[in-house]
C-alpha cells in the first residue's frame, strides 16, 4: 500500500447576475413613526443571510444603527418585484436597489431634520448612532426618532424611498456570440492537497487553501460561511456525489441519503481562505456575488491534485475509488494514460 501526495491548483472567475441581464429587483423603504426603518422586499433567504446583509446596506446608507432597521420580505402582496435569489445576484441587485431607496429616504430625513434644527440639509449628517447633527456642531442635534415623529405628525411628510436596479437585457448575436453577460466578475484560486491510497483508491483531501476576491465583504462571517460551505460542496462534487453512478445509464440512482454520498466530519480538510476586496465598478459598496464561486474552485483543484499524486488525469466526476484504481491500472499497464 502506498499513499501518494499531490497538490493542485485552480483559478476561476464567477459572473454576478443573471446572464444577459433583464433581472431587476426593487426595494421600498419607509420609516415608522418612531424612526425605525422597514426595508420591504420580495427576495428570499436561502440561508446565506440575505436579510442581514440587506439591513446592513440599508443602515449604512441611511446612517442609522443596524438595530433600527428591519427587513420584511417575500410576500408578493406587499413586496415590490424581485427576480429571485440565484446566479449570485441578490446582494448585487437588491443591495443596489436598497441604496437607491435609502438615499431617497435619507434625503427626506435630512430635509425634515433641517426644518427642525433650522439648518440647511447639506450641513447635516446622521451620526450612525440614532441622531442627526450639524456637521461641526455636535450639540446641535436631534434624534432620528424625533425627526420621524415630527415628519409624521407635524410636517405631514413621509420618510420613504423607492429603489430599483436592473441591468438591461442584452441579446446574443447568434453568429459570433457577442453579448454582455454579467455585471461584474469575482475570482477565486484554490490550492488543494490530497493523499491517494493506491490500494483502496480512496482520496483524502488534506487541505483547501484559497483566495477569494469578492469586491467587498459586506458581512465577513457570512462570506466565510459561503467559503466553508462551498468548499465542502465542491469537495463533495469532486469525489462523491452523483444521481447516476453509471451515467448515462439511469440505473441504480440513489433515492436516499445513505446512497447519495456526501462527505462527513472525518473527511473534512483543513480549510483556510483569504478574502480580497477590490471593489467592483457597480456592486453595492463594491461587492461581487460569492455564493456559487466557492463551490467551483475546489473541484478542479482537487482533480489536479490527484493528477499530481498519481501521474494520470481522471477527467470524469466524481473521482471515486473505482476510477482511481482503474486509472492506476491503466497507468501501470499502458504508460502515461489519460482516463476520460
Amino acid at each position: 500500500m502506498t499513499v501518494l501526495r499531490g497538490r493542485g491548483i485552480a483559478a476561476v472567475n464567477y459572473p454576478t447576475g443573471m446572464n444577459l441581464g433583464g433581472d431587476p429587483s426593487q426595494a421600498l423603504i419607509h420609516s415608522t413613526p418612531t424612526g425605525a426603518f422597514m426595508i420591504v422586499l420580495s427576495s428570499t433567504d436561502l440561508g446565506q443571510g440575505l436579510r442581514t446583509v440587506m439591513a446592513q446596506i440599508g443602515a449604512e446608507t441611511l446612517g442609522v444603527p443596524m438595530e433600527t432597521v428591519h427587513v420584511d420580505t417575500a410576500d408578493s402582496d406587499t413586496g415590490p418585484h424581485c427576480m429571485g435569489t440565484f446566479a449570485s445576484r441578490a446582494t448585487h441587485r437588491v443591495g443596489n436597489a436598497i441604496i437607491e431607496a435609502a438615499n431617497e429616504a435619507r434625503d427626506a430625513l435630512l430635509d425634515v431634520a433641517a426644518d427642525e434644527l433650522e439648518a440647511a440639509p447639506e450641513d447635516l449628517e446622521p451620526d450612525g448612532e440614532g441622531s442627526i447633527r450639524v456637521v461641526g456642531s455636535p450639540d446641535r442635534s436631534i434624534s432620528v426618532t424625533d425627526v420621524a415623529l415630527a415628519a409624521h405628525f407635524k410636517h405631514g411628510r413621509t420618510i420613504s424611498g423607492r429603489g430599483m436596479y436592473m441591468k438591461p437585457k442584452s441579446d446574443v448575436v447568434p453568429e459570433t456570440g457577442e453579448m454582455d453577460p454579467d455585471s461584474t466578475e469575482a475570482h477565486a484560486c484554490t490550492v488543494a492537497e490530497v493523499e491517494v491510497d493506491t490500494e483502496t483508491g480512496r482520496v483524502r483531501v488534506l487541505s483547501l487553501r484559497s483566495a477569494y476576491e469578492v469586491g467587498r465583504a459586506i458581512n465577513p462571517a457570512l462570506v466565510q460561511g459561503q467559503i466553508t460551505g462551498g468548499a465542502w460542496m465542491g469537495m463533495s462534487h469532486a469525489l462523491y456525489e452523483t444521481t447516476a453512478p453509471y451515467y448515462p445509464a439511469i440505473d441504480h440512482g440513489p433515492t436516499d441519503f445513505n446512497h447519495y454520498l456526501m462527505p462527513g466530519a472525518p473527511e473534512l480538510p483543513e480549510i483556510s481562505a483569504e478574502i480580497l476586496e477590490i471593489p467592483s465598478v457597480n456592486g453595492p459598496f463594491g461587492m461581487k456575488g460569492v455564493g456559487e464561486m466557492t463551490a467551483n474552485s475546489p473541484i478542479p483543484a482537487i482533480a489536479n491534485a490527484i493528477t499530481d499524486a498519481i501521474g494520470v488525469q481522471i477527467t470524469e466526476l466524481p473521482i471515486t475509488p473505482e476510477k482511481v484504481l482503474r486509472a492506476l491500472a491503466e497507468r501501470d499497464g499502458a504508460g502515461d494514460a489519460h482516463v476520460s
Partner: protein
Amino acid sequence: MAANARAISFELNGESVAALAKPLETLQSVLREQLGMTGTKAGCRQGGCGSCTVHVDGEPTLSCLVPVEHVADREVTTIEGLGSAEEPSPLQAAFHEGFATQCGFCSPGMIAVASALLERNPDPTPEEIGEALAGNVCRCTGIAPIIAAVEDAAARMREGEEVRT
C-alpha cells in the same frame, strides 16, 4: 380519525400529553401534526438526514422511524424543550453566535444530538463530535462550523453555565 386509533400518553418537554395515534403513526408525525412541535423537521422520513432527531428518555432518536406507541409513558424532549429565544441553551447560543446555522433546517436535529452528547461527554474532541453527528446531514455550512459550535458550547457549559435538557 380512524376507528383503530388509540390514545398514547407520554411526557413532552416536561408536561404530560396524550395523542390519538393511528397504528404505526410515527412520533415525528404526532409531534408535528397533533402537538404543534414543528421544530422537529421532516427532511427525508427515511432515517437518513437526522433532522427529525428528538430525545426519548434522553437518548437521541430518529422520530421518523419510531412508532409513537414506542414512547408511551416515556420522556420525549424536542428542540422546543432544549431552550428558547429568550433563554437559549449554551448550544443554541453557540450555534447562533458561531454562524453554525445557515438555512436552519438541520439545526434542531444537530442540537438535539449534540445536547445528548454533551450530557454524557462534557469535553468531547472534534472527532467525537463528528462521530456523534455522523447521522445528521447539513448541506449549507460544511459541517466544520457546527463542530466548532459544539466545542464552544461544551467550553461554556464547563465554565458553569446552566444546562437545560
